[in-house]
């Protein structure tokens, strides 16, 4: 159990220390994030991939209100914990070329956010989950609003008000469940065991779903996302798209499905329809984008839509696909945004039409970017393929039309991503791109790592599938059983 506490609070300690380091904050935060990664790997090695929750911690926190510090890791958590601890060092390393003003605060906030994220991904107490949920939001607000680009204040306020609106309604749902629970605590198992009628489940579904849908984001709750991704600093965008978005998906799997299965049964279809609309809509808009960063932002909405559809399809394949795709999407999208950040920091533009021919002057970047793009468009042999394949299978089982429309994401994605690649990387160099220099140093390190992960996971996804399989199966059984008792 000490391992888990260490895992959660090491980033917090790192954040506090980093905040007082001044110029050397980069190094200090890197050290802390790498140590966290090692710790997560150690935990993953000691993790037995069965359905049980392991490394459990259950300490009284605010006993008067029935709030405990109850956290633990099962297969589903393990995956996102690994993702978080993997991406944070990558994101920190990717910032090495930048000279952010006031680095101590910048890196401190990233580590603080990591602590919040880990709380979200391990919490087995609804109140703790909520605290982590907000603790992850505050730092990213400051990261985006202090170090962001043009018009950042207005855009961030929109982002903040949107997300906090969602979380407050979730809080209302949590309080309701707490009051329904005769033991008067926030324990997740007690919440699972509640017998709510379908009307109650219906509105609790919405209270939670809106919070999660805004975070992911699912159409029509997505309007904050493209602006925020564009205005945020590169590392902020990576944090948002790579990790924070997974909070919403994870929330659906961990809290929404098992607690209100009847609500999901009643409203899940609508959620799938919204997700599929989002896929098509975001893909279509992605076609028309002139800014590569916005294009990736919209493609992210499309990908997340597919993940959401897979989850609400509610079968083993969809669920497992969502698991793998969470990991893959996190890695790929961070890679994409990093490449765009490299281009932006050299040429000061992400406008697709102003670029071109970069492959000639920067062949290494062209190759890694190609691998990342192929991973994103789900070429067989890359990590994206496994997830999208499983997801589509899951959706297909749910309904053939749904799968047919959702499958458009792959076709559309291939078209706009490859077209973007072509316009940015291939062709003739122009007066702007001729000056482009190839990647080196930490850029290489980060991008090679990402490419390696893309290929390794694509060729050999078994460990990841194995890691989550038992937990996913257990979850489905649990929910189905509960659903049968309600009906």
């Amino acid at each position: 159990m000490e391992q888990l506490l260490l895992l959660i609070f090491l980033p917090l300690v790192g954040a506090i220390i980093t905040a007082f380091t001044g110029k050397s904050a980069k190094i200090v935060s890197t050290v802390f994030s790498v140590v966290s990664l090692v710790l997560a790997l150690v935990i993953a090695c000691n993790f037995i991939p069965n359905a049980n929750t392991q490394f459990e911690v259950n300490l009284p926190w605010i006993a008067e209100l029935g709030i405990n510090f109850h956290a633990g890791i099962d297969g589903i958590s393990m995956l996102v914990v690994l993702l978080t601890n993997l991406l944070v060092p990558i994101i920190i390393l990717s910032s090495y070329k930048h000279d952010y003003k006031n680095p101590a605060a910048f890196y401190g906030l990233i580590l603080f956010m990591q602590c919040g994220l880990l709380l979200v991904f391990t919490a087995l107490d609804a109140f703790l989950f909520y605290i982590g949920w907000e603790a992850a939001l505050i730092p990213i607000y400051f990261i985006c609003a202090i170090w962001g680009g043009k018009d950042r204040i207005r855009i961030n306020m929109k982002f903040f008000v949107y997300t906090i609106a969602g979380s407050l309604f979730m809080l209302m749902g949590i309080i309701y469940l707490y009051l329904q629970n005769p033991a008067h605590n926030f324990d997740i198992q007690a919440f699972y065991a509640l017998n709510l009628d379908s009307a109650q489940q219906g509105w609790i579904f919405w209270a939670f779903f809106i919070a999660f849908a805004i975070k992911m984001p699912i159409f029509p709750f997505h309007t904050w996302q493209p602006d925020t991704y564009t205005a945020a600093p590169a590392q902020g965008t990576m944090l948002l798209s790579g990790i924070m978005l997974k909070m919403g998906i994870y929330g659906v799997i961990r809290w929404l499905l098992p607690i209100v299965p009847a609500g999901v049964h009643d409203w899940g279809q609508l959620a799938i329809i919204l997700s599929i609309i989002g896929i098509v809509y975001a893909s279509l808009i992605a076609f028309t984008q002139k800014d590569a960063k916005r294009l990736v932002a919209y493609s992210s909405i499309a990908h997340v839509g597919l993940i959401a559809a897979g989850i609400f399809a509610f079968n083993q394949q969809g669920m497992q696909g969502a698991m793998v795709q969470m990991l893959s999407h996190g890695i790929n999208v961070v890679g994409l945004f990093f490449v765009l950040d490299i281009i932006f920091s050299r040429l000061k533009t992400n406008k697709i039409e102003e670029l071109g021919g970069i492959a000639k002057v920067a062949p290494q970047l062209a190759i890694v970017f190609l691998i990342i793009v192929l991973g994103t468009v789900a070429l067989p042999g890359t990590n994206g393929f496994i997830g999208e394949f499983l997801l589509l299978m899951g959706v297909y089982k749910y309904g053939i039309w749904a799968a047919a429309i959702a499958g458009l994401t792959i076709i559309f994605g291939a078209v706009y991503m490859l077209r973007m690649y072509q316009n940015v990387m291939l062709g003739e160099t122009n007066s702007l791109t001729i000056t482009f220099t190839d990647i080196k140093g930490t850029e290489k390190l980060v991008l090679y790592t990402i490419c390696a992960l893309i290929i390794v996971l694509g060729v050999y996804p078994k460990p990841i599938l194995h890691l989550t399989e038992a937990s996913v199966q257990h979850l489905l059984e649990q929910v189905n059983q509960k659903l049968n008792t309600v009906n």
Partner: protein
Amino acid sequence: MNIIITISITAFIVLYAGLFKANKALLPLTVVGLLTALGFTFCAWNGNAVHFGMMQTDNFALAFSGVCIIGTLLIFLLTQNYFHAKSDNIAEYYTLILFALAGMIMMVSYKNMAMLFVGLEIMSVSLYILAGIRKKDFASNEASLKYFLMGAFSTGFLLFGITLIYGATGSFDLDKIQAYLVDHNTSVSPIFYPGVILMMIGLCFKIGAAPFHFWTPDVYEGSPSLITTFMSTVVKTAGFAAFLRLFAGSFAPLHDFWVAPLMVIVCLTLFIGNVTALFQKNFKRMLAYSSISHAGYLLFSLIVLTKNSGNNVLVYAAAYTFASIIAFAVLILVKQKTGSDSFESFNGLGKKNPLVALSLTIAMLSLAGIPLTAGFIGKYLMFLNVMTQYKTLLVAFAILNALVGFYYYFKVIVAVWFKDGAETELSTPVQYKVVLLVSVVITLILGIYPAIILNLI
């Protein structure tokens, strides 16, 4: 009893010290006096003594006395050079604040309506003078007059209410009134009901709940900032404690009757406070309007009466008091430097004074109700309280209001951190640093580990 006596004696000593021009001794004397009073508060804990049948120092009274005394103490620490710059006779300021505090202690511990009235008047009269203490300043005069007129008006309501209730029950004693209600639960005298409503109106005036809030923004803005700090934090806390003692205690059997008008007041207060705060360009007025909205949240505890109602108010009031003290302390510093209390004068504060800016940020997060600060726990308890009877629509309404709140509190954070300004270097006296540090620490401790205060009463 010891608490009131200590505070009153301190007030007299300070007055005499002022007479002998011992201006340097005023603050130390006051601090010693207040610390002694605080010591008595701790000693009397769990004592539950009744004094002359008029006052009851139970844990409820002691806890609120504690918050009021600590709040006053912090505000006194902010007086360094503040009054000196404005007047020669600064002993009067000290004395008046101390007398107001004595009145508040009566208000939180009354057992008899006469004591409520006496305490309220001691406090109010002191405040009328304090609001207008800059006698050559037009705004200050206006504030004082407005406050006095409104205060007198509300006292009238209160007194009429007390009279009617006396007429119905034949007693001023809280316990006897409650006993009357319990005994005559089907045949309560018809003059009792208007009595309850009139008292509610009177007390709502005092705590600045809508629609009886019109005096607050002007009075808060016109009074010297330090007095505003005092009025919007400590005074408000005492007012709520008095409100709670009466309505959650004596009038509880009649809850079904007065909860409906209270609901209207709560919704109006939340809405008017938040929406008007949103449009303010002046930081001080924003705080004034937001303090109205906080009154709305505080009244949540009366909508559903549980055994925790008192404690919930205590947590919320403590959270609000300490966060507001930070906000006003920074406001005083900024105003001394720039001469303005608009949002623009906070621009760029984060660059030159990161610690002051950080304290202000934490205060704003707490007022907005972000987790890991005391303000969140306060709001959480209020929502929880109302949710126990599943008044989900009310909570949804409060959530929408909280969102508006986020918007204007974050305007301050935006100004402090994200806007470029004159990058004013503030001189932060040691005492200010102490106040900021103490308040920040309390805000964070209550936010992270609220267990220490949750079952106090």
